[in-house]
């Protein structure tokens, strides 16, 4: 408390001299090759140091052991990094030039890392990008080049209380028109709230923007030079979101912290939620195996006027410019993107493969819940890849909160978002 937090806040910046007024940044960025230098097909060798986050960091050594079998001269050293604040760790590493060879990157952070000039472009011919889900590839691109290789994907679908739906005699909604009546029916059979929607907590945008996509909105102009939030389609999506709250299908005070929603869903006070494949595990620990089997239904998101687009997230792999074993790192990444290895990884971790052909056999091909996510992946989209996207999402969260709490209208919110996003710019 009494220590100087100011000094701590200020610490950790780059050194900039006041006197540098004369030598400004040159506005034209030099023309660069669209891809990195090719990597040969020989087995990898040497030590490959990688950072991986969360559960992936804990499980990756098992996969790396397989890699070492195929590449006896290579050794992968995995450092597990917590998801929380990993972005700052990567940015600090890039700034100081003291990096490992490769790192896992969360889909939203790639543009920010690439813009710092710390990531290598993916070598030409390393992988065939068309084998991945398009949404996953989309999130590895920055300013016309690829800086990452998709690894696993996640997307969100509709989880609902199957038992309440059966009691009410309704089946999962397929369109926006069926959405409200479906939730209303579940509410009439005991649930206090129909659908759980975030209303302002961090990353609320990931739940609201899909409504806009479903209505046909594009958040950015085709040339990537400006944001386009204030459009009739976006408004349709935002009004649809608002209507859940005004018609009392959703709580105006949505969940704020992780783990808040599962107990309510198990208790039956909330009848539906939108979440990713990890939700099954969370519900199992909150309600038990039998609860998930008997009472949880999973369905694709109901389609709006244009599509039933969901948000796509996931993990990808990037190699640092300051990598010591650059070739080895890319070889490891190439190996991990092979369909067979992706299947092995799914078996180890439950992460959904980013390579489409990895889904052709086993549980990935036959499991009905996974089939829902698989369908969802074909239309799932990621947010725009600009360095300023994180800042824009903070504006989105704040304005969506105003809509949810009834202090702003969708129209006014989009106008405000448009204006502030234009001020922030796309980092061009």
């Amino acid at each position: 408390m009494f220590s100087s937090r100011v000094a701590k806040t200020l610490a950790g910046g780059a050194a900039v001299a006041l006197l540098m007024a004369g030598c400004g940044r040159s506005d034209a960025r030099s023309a660069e090759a669209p891809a990195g230098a090719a990597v040969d097909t020989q087995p990898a060798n040497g030590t490959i140091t990688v950072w991986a986050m969360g559960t992936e960091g804990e499980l990756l050594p098992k996969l790396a052991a397989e890699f070492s079998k195929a590449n006896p001269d290579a050794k992968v050293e995995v450092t597990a990094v917590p998801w929380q604040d990993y972005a700052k760790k990567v940015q600090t590493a890039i700034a100081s030039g003291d990096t490992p060879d490769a790192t896992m990157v969360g889909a939203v952070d790639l543009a920010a890392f690439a813009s710092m000039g710390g990531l290598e472009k993916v070598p030409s011919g390393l992988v065939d990008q068309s084998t991945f889900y398009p949404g996953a590839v989309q999130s590895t691109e920055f300013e016309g080049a690829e800086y990452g290789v998709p690894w696993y994907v996640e997307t969100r679908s509709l989880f609902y209380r199957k038992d309440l739906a059966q009691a009410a005699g309704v089946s999962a909604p397929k369109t926006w028109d069926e959405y409200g009546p479906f939730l209303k029916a579940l509410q009439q059979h005991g649930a206090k709230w129909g659908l759980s929607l975030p209303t302002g907590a961090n990353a609320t945008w990931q739940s609201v923007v899909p409504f806009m996509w479903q209505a046909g909105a594009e958040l950015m102009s085709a040339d990537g030079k400006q944001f386009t939030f204030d459009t009739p389609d976006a408004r349709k999506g935002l009004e649809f979101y608002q209507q859940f709250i005004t018609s009392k299908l959703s709580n105006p005070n949505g969940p704020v912290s992780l783990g808040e929603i599962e107990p309510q869903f198990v208790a039956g006070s909330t009848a539906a939620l939108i979440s990713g494949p990890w939700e099954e595990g969370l519900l199992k620990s909150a309600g038990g195996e039998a609860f998930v089997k008997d009472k949880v239904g999973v369905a694709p998101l109901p389609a709006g006027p244009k599509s039933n687009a969901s948000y796509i997230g996931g993990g990808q792999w990037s190699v640092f410019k300051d990598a010591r074993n650059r070739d080895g790192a890319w070889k490891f990444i190439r190996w991990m993107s092979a369909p067979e290895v992706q299947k092995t990884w799914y078996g180890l971790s439950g992460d959904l493969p980013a390579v489409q052909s990895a889904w052709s056999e086993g549980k990935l091909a036959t499991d009905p819940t996974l089939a829902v996510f698989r369908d969802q992946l074909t239309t799932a989209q990621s947010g725009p890849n600009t360095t300023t996207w994180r800042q824009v999402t903070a504006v989105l969260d704040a304005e969506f909160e105003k809509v949810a709490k009834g202090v702003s209208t969708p129209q006014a919110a989009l106008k405000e978002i448009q204006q502030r996003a234009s001020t922030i710019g796309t980092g061009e």
Partner: protein
Amino acid sequence: MARRTFVAWGFCGPFIALFATFGVWPVVSSLSMSVTDITARDIRTPFSVDFVGVSHYTALFGDPVFRRAAVNTLYFVAAGIPLTMIIALALAVALNSGIRRAKALFRVGYFAPVVTSVVAIAVVWRYLYEPDGMINSALAVIGIHGPDWLNDPHWAMPALIVMAVWRHFGIPMVIFLAGLQSVPADLLESARVDGATRWQAFRNVTLPLLRPTTLVVAVLLSIGYLQFFEEPFVMTSGGPLGSTTSISYYAYQQFGFGNYGMASAASYVLVAAIALLSFVQFRIFRAKA
């Protein structure tokens, strides 16, 4: 070099080196960052940035989010400092006289919030502030329907102020306790002999003698409270509707966005506010001393 000088440097050198690296250097570099257009993009080529003068500072005051943060911070300081001081002084007086037995236990008890991890505190207080949590259940007993504390834009800040005061009164209490113990007993005794009541003796003897202690506490608290950060960070993420975003939180967010120039400028606005408030407090308390 004389032997004595050498020895002196041997002892002071490590501290000076550390302080220069982690104390002075960040302050100087962030001051210079606040007048350039540096962003995360420039981090590997820091000498390519442009000098932009005070434009970040003017942009800050044109940003409604920052203005809101500034108002929130002042609200927190204006409510938090008097509350903390009154509670700390009252408890210090109680500990100094009233409670004879188990004094040590109370001192430790009141001081415990200061040393407990803020994350652990946040978990517990979030439960307390739930719409049907312990606080509202207690209010319901006396017939008051409590608000949804952390989700209500009018109540989130008071809720955080209560939590912050609870968390921080320990150190001021200990300082007041030390001050109280230095009040000469014979002065109080002679006041009592002259017929003063306990309260009169406290008002006219103890309080004036506590003036230097009060100054220390007030300055320390305003430095700490102006940097209001941890409570909104762990409890509300600055919400709902921006009602608990503070200047520090705003600066933290800007760093996260890679806007190092803006973030540094916001930090320096805070430095200026702290300097100004401390100066005013020194003037007030010294003038009467």
